[in-house]
């Protein structure tokens, strides 16, 4: 299955992936509108910055799937290998935040629910927004 991978040699910690991700999943037609119309959209990818190493982390769609198994509402499920969240069913208990070994479940504090990377299966054709938006090809979408 094609997944998003990050090559930390090339990650510049520019954080653009977070903004492209947030905008793509905001439902707004462009980035300006996504960020300028009230609620600040939440990225599902997070950049970790170090002194000389940086990388972005997002859902690994891992084999363990502890988040799905622990979900108390059934909001999280697996579609074609992709862990997806039905946000309308999430009550914000954060059991998945507790479970995810990569820290990839993102808390939407305003919405009192979680958000997570679904590889842009709901909003994009082709490559996920973070991959398209990475200026240094640090983020790739590929089969491994």
């Amino acid at each position, binding site marked *: 299955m094609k997944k998003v991978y990050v090559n930390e040699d090339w990650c*510049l910690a*520019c954080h*653009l992936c977070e*903004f492209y991700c947030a*905008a793509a999943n905001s439902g707004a037609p462009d980035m300006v509108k996504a*960020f*300028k119309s009230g609620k600040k959209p939440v990225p599902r990818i997070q950049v970790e910055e170090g002194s000389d190493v940086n990388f972005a982390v997002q859902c690994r769609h891992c084999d363990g799937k502890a988040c799905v198994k622990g979900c108390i509402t059934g909001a999280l499920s697996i579609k074609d290998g992709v862990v997806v969240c039905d946000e309308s069913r999430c009550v914000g208990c954060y059991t998945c935040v507790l479970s995810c070994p990569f820290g990839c479940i993102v808390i939407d504090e305003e919405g009192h629910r979680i958000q997570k990377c679904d590889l842009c299966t709901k909003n994009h054709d082709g490559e996920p927004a973070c991959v398209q938006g990475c200026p*240094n*090809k640090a983020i790739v979408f590929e089969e491994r």
Partner: protein
Amino acid sequence: MAIEFMNPLFEVIRDSDRCIKCRVCERQCANEVHKYDADLDKMISNEMTCVDCQRCVCLCPTHALKIRPNENQFRENANWTHQTMDEVYKQAGSGGVLLSAMGNPKDLPVYWDRILLNASQVTNPPIDPLREPMETKTFLGKKNQGITYDENGKAHYDKTPYLELDVPIMFSAMSFGSISKNAHESLARAATELGTFYNTGEGGLHRDFYKYGANTICQVASGRFGVFKGYLDAGAAIEIKMGQGAKPGIGGHLPGMKINDEISRTRMIPKGTDAISPAPHHDIYSIEDLRQLVISLKEATNWEKPIIVKIAAVHNVAAIASGVARSGADIIAIDGFRGGTGAAPTRIRDNVGIPIELALAAVDSRLRDEGIRNDVSVVVGGSVRSAADVVKAIALGADAVYIATSALLAMGCHLCRSCNTGKCNWGIATQRADLVKRLNPDIAAERLVNLVTAWDHEIKEMMGGMGINSIEALRGNRLMLRGVGLTQKELDILGIQHAGE
């Protein structure tokens, strides 16, 4: 605080309707122009340090940024231009020589743009490169070998070392030190994929890149940095750098702060020491000394590698080239006055040397007049900006061209001409690890390959239009050129007719 006589060269125009305060501009500016102010909840700019490298503009996800020349101007004066005055202020403040980078930006004639190409009509057919073979393979080296046939009709001939190029375009010398390791890797990988060559410059060859040796030209310059037997053996050819178009008659100076571990190891000089290339080679004070170096290098490499001698285009370039052709060198590289540099004294860069077009025409004609054009190949550089420039250069008589500025542009350079600061935001002309990282060789090598491939396509289109299906039939084919708006003197030097003739 003393009065600052100068004002910012550029203005940062930020469209607050578009700015989403993502701060990518702030994170990506090594000059610290942008800053997020939490109290104001907005981005603010310190324009004084902006060099107009366009990194922020390119990365801004909402296209909220523009960098424009500062509209603030000193009182208009055709003689004392704003820039001239700025330079006086700068020197009055610093007491130092002005430093610049990249090529001469002055409004001096660009002869490429005054030369037009021919195309076939009626009496002979243009050739469609998509339907017929169209050949750009080029050999560089001596072409004066004899051939004899024995009684059985079998040919006997000598072969001298040569370079075989799939495209008549090579990447010219840029040292590791002046540019980053990732930039070097990108050039090396691109040259390998393209079947052409890149040039180490005078900074030696990083251990990691010996594997690209078959596509590497190893330069020997006056500082002899990183030169040892293994280095000479590593490449496909050796280039003796006598001069550089951006700064003829001037050596080089890589400040100690750029000499990090890897550069120190590669250049074979202590870490943190300045790397100073003398103006002359101190073992070459005349042409016969050059001949000795050429022969020494050939001896050192078992006469297996062609030797390139690179000279800057100066007033008597034709005579110099004639001397070089007789020195035993296999290839002469001529660098025009618009050639780039990582750092040069501004006055030198802007006032010394001559245009490559004239130098090339003069050299090619001179070598033919002397009947020694076959003794050497001629490679020209110094602002070859497009496939059209390549075609014109070859028609004027060049065997191949060197490109560097175009290659840098392909990798992201925006010609802000601040290489000398070491803070290249594009990760090219810098050794700062966090900046070097910005140049991913996977991307840069691909872009270089794309550029040269695109040019090769265009060269083939233009050749096809002229009814030529092999690059060698274009070489020195000056009938394919016509001048526009040139004086008879210029036409004579270029050896071409005026348009309409």
